[in-house]
């Protein structure tokens, strides 16, 4: 089970997706509904409250007013910046757009086109911004076999490459959504039998074996061994748990982070005000803050993006794992699942009894991390 461990550039292990790859690599999620067109514009399963309110006159009025002011602002901006700079107009348009969840389909399309134009311009290649919504009958779930994990961190690198995370040299410019925690196995010795607490009295109040062991959250993710797995360690990868009762969503003052109909907790990066309350609330340290404009080299940028997923972020907003919406909404596995060399990572539809994840929940002993906090993650750990 010993795998060669080497820190290679992310790109060599995992090539960013191109349009052609989609067809080649396409693996259907186990049990995911195949008979539905994935980019169907009408999405009844969405938890979007706006979906039912689109016809109200007040909203239409506000929208019209908003568009009017928006277009005039864009015009002003274009004039101010000598009109050849299309980016300025796009940025003004982005600045005054609404919360994504409350946008109408047309507004979502406008936002999408704006972003596609800006990103294509910025990264010098054709960038697509997907707006595919939640599919009915789908509830995404994840299971991770901690016995199998060898701590190679290919998932971490694949995630960074797939999801356009910042990868600069300064500490604040390096963002990774997955952390693989290295845990001590713990060591207990015969010689220490008479030691204990308090020391020297001969009367033991406590024992000598209170050393870390097993799955505790005191792990270390900065480890650099010659080869993995190491004999004296076990590994426990963590990332966003996509809680069913997410504390981060509750504390968001602008509702920019919310749970999507098919399960993942997402962020509208354009609506985030950077107050960081969600980072205080997350018990799994799943959220990262863009302390500066993300460092994302043009050639490494993954042009297949989703609006709520891996599209490039901006300075001052929070980001996190979203289970690769740009892939999973099209019945593909998240990048981490695809890259895992030992098959420790499983992903699928919790509503489908035939899916791999459902089978694991049915047959294995599973546990959720920090279950006592009642966050009800859809990310399960299990042993063989």
């Amino acid at each position, binding site marked *: 089970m010993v795998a060669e461990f080497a820190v290679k550039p992310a790109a060599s292990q995992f090539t960013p997706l191109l349009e052609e790859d989609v067809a080649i690599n396409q693996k259907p999620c186990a049990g995911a509904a195949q008979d539905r067109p994935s980019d169907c514009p009408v999405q009844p399963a969405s938890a979007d409250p706006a979906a039912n309110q689109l016809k109200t006159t007040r909203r239409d009025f506000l929208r019209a007013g908003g568009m009017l002011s928006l277009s005039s602002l864009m015009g002003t901006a274009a004039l101010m910046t000598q009109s050849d700079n299309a980016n300025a107009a796009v940025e003004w348009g982005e600045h005054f757009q609404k919360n994504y969840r409350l946008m109408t389909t047309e507004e979502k399309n406008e936002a999408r086109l704006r972003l596609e134009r800006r990103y294509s311009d910025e990264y010098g290649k054709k960038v697509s911004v997907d707006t595919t919504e939640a599919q009915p009958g789908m509830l995404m779930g994840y299971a991770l076999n901690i016995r199998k994990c060898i701590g190679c961190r290919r998932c971490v690198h694949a995630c960074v490459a797939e999801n356009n995370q910042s990868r600069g040299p300064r500490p604040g410019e390096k963002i990774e959504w997955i952390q693989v925690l290295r845990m001590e196995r713990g060591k207990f010795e015969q010689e220490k039998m008479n030691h204990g607490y308090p020391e020297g009295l001969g009367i033991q109040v406590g024992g000598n074996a209170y050393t870390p062991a097993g799955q505790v959250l005191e792990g270390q993710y900065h480890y650099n061994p010659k080869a993995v797995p190491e004999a004296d360690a076990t590994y426990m990868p963590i990332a966003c748990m996509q809680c069913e009762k997410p504390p981060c969503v509750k504390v968001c003052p602008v509702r920019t982070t919310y749970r999507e109909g098919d399960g993942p907790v997402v962020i509208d990066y354009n609506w985030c005000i950077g107050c960081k309350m969600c980072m205080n609330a997350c018990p799994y340290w799943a959220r990262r803050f863009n302390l*500066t404009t993300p460092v994302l080299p043009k050639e490494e940028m993954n042009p297949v993006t989703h609006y709520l997923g891996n599209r490039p972020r901006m300075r001052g907003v929070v980001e996190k794992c979203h289970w690769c919406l740009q892939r999973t909404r099209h019945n593909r596995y998240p990048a981490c699942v695809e890259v895992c060399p030992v098959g420790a990572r499983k992903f699928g539809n919790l509503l489908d009894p035939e899916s791999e994840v459902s089978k694991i929940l049915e047959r294995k002993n599973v546990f959720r991390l920090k279950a006592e906090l009642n966050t009800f993650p859809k990310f399960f750990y299990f042993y063989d």
Partner: protein
Amino acid sequence: MLTSFLTDYTRYVLKGGKQFYTWMGVLSAFILAMLFVFYLQNTDGLIVTGMTSQISDGLYLANLVFLVGVAAGAVTIVFPAYVYHHEGMHKVAVLGEMLAITAVIMVMVFVFAHMGRPDRLWHMIPPRGIYSFSSMLGWDVMVLNGYLILNFVCGFYYLWCKYTGNPVNQKWFIPLVYVAIAWALSIHTVTAFLMANNPARPMWFHSMMPIRFIATAFAAGPALIILIFLIIRKNTKFWVDDSAIKLLTTIVQFCLGIAIFLTLSEVVIELYARTEHANGLYYLMFGLHGLTALVPWFWSSVVLMIGAFVMFFMPSFRNDFDKLRIPCAMAFAGIWIEKGMGLIVPGYIPSPIGEVTEYHPSFVEWLMVLGIWAFGFFILTILLKGAIGILLGEIKHGGPAAAVK
């Protein structure tokens, strides 16, 4: 009449001696530095600060929380003045309201400072933005704005009546003052909820937090007020009664005592069992895995608070208003540390996945903090000068607007 009030008021507060202009000039220099730093933060990003993804908030949130306490602390003047009709306090109640206005404005500037995208603040404001009732930050913004309005209305209506010579309309003024008193408790309670409602952060996840916030606020707020009153007595013709300062001293001492008691309770309860949840406190007091950046802060805060508490017992400090400054300054500084380096920062250390990292505020961050405090003193000087001018009768409808100081 309103225009004459505004012109008289403005003319009065802008005129002053050399000392006044030097003071305001120094403050302005710091404010300019703050503006530059703010520009940096919004071009380079918060990377210019010492904040990281692990320690996602630091000095800014700490000062924010502390200043909410100072704003709430103004109620220690208003409450005895209007509920117990304390003579000396009644005379200076409006000065407390001016302090509250200043502190709330400073809080709002700190909100801007700590945000990643202050340009998007309008996302919180309906109808175009979204107001979330489930978010404690939303509630905090609401109660703070409410408190600002209440104090502005109460304070300036009172000054307006003094200016025009009309009697205060007790029918709505007194009920409004009572609302403001209750509201003062709400602002610091909600701020405590903002931190405490995070089970992810065991250091904050205490039902003791609101009362601890109130106790420390009612020590730090009046401690600052005493210092300001002593400055006013020395530098202006306005006389703050001894009785007011003595009552405030008692309030500071009692609240400081309660705050120390609550801190000790926390230490005993957390460290006796010493669960994983006590790691934050342990890191604060003794350091963890060899990292000890906060240890000097914690112990200096303990020394300052206990030292001040003991000094308040001594008649030589309590009754000598020159020496009284020392324990007041100590209490104020001690609580400032306790709220910031002693509560906000260790909430992030260790992180929810057990990672211990250190927080080192950058120069930029200190400059921002200093600048916002300078901005606060700038506003406070103007507001207090105007209020004192009106109370002294130097700004009066139809009277000559003479500038003093």
